């Protein structure tokens, strides 16, 4: 008999805790349901319809997806988006070298860290505008600097061959500081005794780098690769500002730019949504791989 009121009190306390906790998490959960989950489900539905955004969506089965498969612009936009991702490995190598340099015990590292990080925090819209002018064939900074060393630069953003590399160079410039910072943090967390032990065993600088530094940096590298791929697959702002028409011969149109164009300029909402579902699936697969490999590498460390 004595245990009963006690248990009852406990369960009221627990119920109060449950209700309060529910209240605290309710807001983000509702936000998720209204602004993410519902639009997501609706997107899948709409991708099977013909829809101009004004009248009701009309179901057409798989037609959008069939059209996508034979849409040369879709494939070119996909190809452009993929091409522009070559900046990812280049940026990673450069940022690792930078981090190694900044990890040395010497003066000025804090200053340089700040300098290289400034483009990261700068507004991408403003940065895209200034690079658009910098790439201008007549009055741009880039070609005038190239002329100083005797190179006649192309008219970057008007040239089907050079428009994509121009955007890649800008993206590397913009993102370098971010991966540099993550690499630097990872380098500083490598236990010193590993290097000392390796030095005693007679391992030189290069072997220490190859067999200690590189493996210890693997989680960060993986994180950077995946987030860059996810970010890179959604490249839009640079394209929209620097080459508003998708570039010469459609050479810079990215997949998100093409989706945006179809949805908001041509009112082909159903078709655009179907493409966005394909994009979502691709991103999902890449992210799922990340979680899988991340989990495996965590196990191997522990």
């Amino acid at each position, binding site marked *: 008999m004595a245990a009963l009121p006690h248990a009852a009190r406990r369960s009221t306390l627990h119920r109060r*805790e*449950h209700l*309060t*906790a*529910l209240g*605290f*998490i309710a*807001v*983000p*959960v509702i*936000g*998720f349901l209204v602004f*993410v*989950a*519902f*639009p*997501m489900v*609706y*997107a899948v539905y709409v991708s099977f319809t013909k829809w101009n*955004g004004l009248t009701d969506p009309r179901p057409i089965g798989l037609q959008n997806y069939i059209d996508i498969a034979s849409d040369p612009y879709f494939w070119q936009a996909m190809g452009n988006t993929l091409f522009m991702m070559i900046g990812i490995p280049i940026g990673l190598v450069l940022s690792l070298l*930078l981090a190694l*340099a*900044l990890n*040395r015990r*010497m003066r000025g590292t804090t200053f*340089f860290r*700040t300098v290289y*990080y*400034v*483009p990261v*925090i*700068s*507004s991408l*819209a*403003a*940065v895209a*505008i200034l*690079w658009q*002018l*910098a790439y201008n064939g007549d*009055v*741009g*900074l880039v070609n005038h600097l190239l002329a100083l060393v005797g190179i006649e630069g192309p008219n970057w953003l008007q040239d089907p061959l050079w428009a994509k590399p121009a955007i890649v160079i800008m993206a590397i410039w913009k993102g370098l*500081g*971010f991966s540099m*910072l*993550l690499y630097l*943090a*990872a380098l500083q967390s490598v236990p010193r005794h590993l290097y000392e032990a390796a030095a005693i065993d007679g391992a030189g600088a290069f072997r220490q780098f190859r067999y200690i530094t590189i493996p210890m940096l693997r989680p960060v590298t993986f994180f950077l690769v995946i987030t860059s791929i996810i970010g890179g697959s*959604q490249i*839009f*702002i640079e394209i929209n500002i620097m080459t508003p028409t998708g570039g010469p011969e459609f050479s810079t149109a990215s997949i*998100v730019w093409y*989706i*945006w164009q179809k*949805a908001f300029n041509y009112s082909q909402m159903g078709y*655009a949504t179907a493409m*966005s579902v394909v*994009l979502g699936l691709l991103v*999902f697969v890449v992210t799922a791989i990340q979680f899988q490999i991340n989990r495996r590498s965590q196990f191997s460390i522990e």
Partner: protein
Amino acid sequence: MTLDAPDTVATIIPPRTGSARRPRLADTTLDTQVGSRTRRHRLTNVIVTIVLALGGIVMIAPLVWTLSTSLKSKSAALTDPLQWIPNPIQWDNYIRVWSAEPLAAGIMNSIIVSVSVTIVGTAVSALAAFAFAKMRLPFKNGIFLALLAAIMIPFPTIMIPQFMMFSNLGLVDTLWPLILPGLFGNIVMIFFLRQFLDTVPDSIIEAAKLDGAGYLRIFTTLIFPAIRPAIAAQFILWFMAVWNDYLAPVIYLNTPEKQTLQVVIATFNSTYATQRDYPLIMAASFIALIPVLVVFAVFQRQIIESVALTGAKG
């Protein structure tokens, strides 16, 4: 090693002969060895510094060039793009740009969106992180994982239905589509604050509960002070992300007076590029760059540390 070291010294160095010379000799050889090593180290440092400086110039030059172009006359920008210090300096461009476009409205709109989203959203996220980390609730880990999965959904995939939702509510061309979703918190922020709360011991919460404190009081008096640095860091990062956002604003906002700063300068860019009035465009871009640069200058340490932490936890 340390234990038998005195023994070794005693056997190697005879008590009297050359006890004054030996150490000096040893010292000098050691000195020259260390000397050549530090000299090599110093030489490498000089080379590395030079390379870093050259790279640093590449990083900063476009921004300096923006400032310098924004202070040139229209013809000077066309004829002499490499003139770094404009002569004469045309402050006039900043006055012209201010009257040519609704820049003030753009700044105001950007402030309204980023301040309301980050302040309300941060409070919501912190409370949710507290509940996820420290409170008992059935299925809370499952719910958390479901929220986390939402990060995987790219915005372009849901932007069209979201646009239609706000369009049906008559909210297109208002700031609400940019504000409303943010008010419900930020999953990335919840994730990091929840991680950070692991460092707060459960015992202090239990103790406060025994004293009869409610959960909201526990949060304001115990949790919030304990995780304030993490909240500050995430707040700054989020603020800059909202301030610099472009895709959603460009979809929702059409009327110039209602656009955020980023859209205003982009519109401005496409309007004035045909007139080749580059100083004006650069002035607008530079104005858009200033607020975040100032925030960065002030909160540099917090920003850099929280980004580094992001990588460690990611």
